[in-house]
């Protein structure tokens, strides 16, 4: 800081000025309550808040599916055609 520069005096003076006066209390509580009620969390807010927990719960499921697929693939015929033929057996209708 350079205490001799006029900026320091300015800052000191400005610190003692309240640009918009004091906060008026008229209707403050009512307005805040109304805003709080209109800003109630929506379904999207809840989902986004808990999404990381869902991801943790999905991890074992994901691992299970991966293990299952790996075990299935051990007996698969080689090539993409063989893979397709294998997975078509799981469909509820014939192709």
């Amino acid at each position: 800081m350079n205490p001799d520069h006029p900026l320091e005096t300015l800052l000191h003076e400005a610190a003692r000025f309240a640009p918009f006066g004091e906060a008026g209390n008229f209707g403050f509580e009512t307005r805040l309550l109304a805003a709080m009620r209109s800003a109630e969390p929506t379904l999207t807010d809840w989902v986004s808040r808990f999404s990381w927990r869902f991801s943790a719960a999905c991890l074992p499921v994901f691992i299970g599916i991966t293990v299952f697929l790996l075990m299935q693939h051990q007996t698969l015929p080689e090539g993409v055609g063989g893979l397709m033929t294998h997975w078509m057996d799981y469909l509820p209708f014939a192709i």
Partner: protein
Amino acid sequence: MFFFDTTRTTRKVETDIPESEWVARAKRGDEGAFVHLATIYRPRIWSTASRFARSRVELEDLTQDLFLKMWKGLPSYRSEAPFEHWVMTLAVRGCYDFLRSNRRRRENETVVDPQESPDDPDPASERDQSRREAWETVSLLLDHLEAKDRVLITLLDLEERGVRETAALTGWTETNVKVRAHRARKKMRELFDELGLEP
């Protein structure tokens, strides 16, 4: 017997409730408890936010937005830190976000002369007038700073908070606060001289 009006008794007891209890109630979703806390902290938040708003209407909106953020963020408040510190941290960071999100719009605006604004208090004395002029000049210089620097100068020089407190409120390191503030003041001094302003 339950035929008597117990309102007076309840009110008297509620004034003795410690702040931690109000906070706990608000955390449980008690809107009235949160409004009670908001009423207590409003002057402090108003004072800080007034350094960033350009009109009284904008200041009212900013203050209300800050309280809404607090209401939504209240479940994340941990009681280890003082509630006041948590409130002021959220307020300062909210003001910083406000500055960043409105920067482009603010650059295109002309500075409102507070004397022309009917919402502003009349200068009661020569000293008030001098302080008002000082604020207008400082405000003009602050408009040329980055949002981060503006927040720092406001907290350090206008709110006269210490480096450690400023670092805690902003979440930046003390070294970062010192270095940035030094550069920001230098930039303000240069601009002051360049524009040929007078104190």
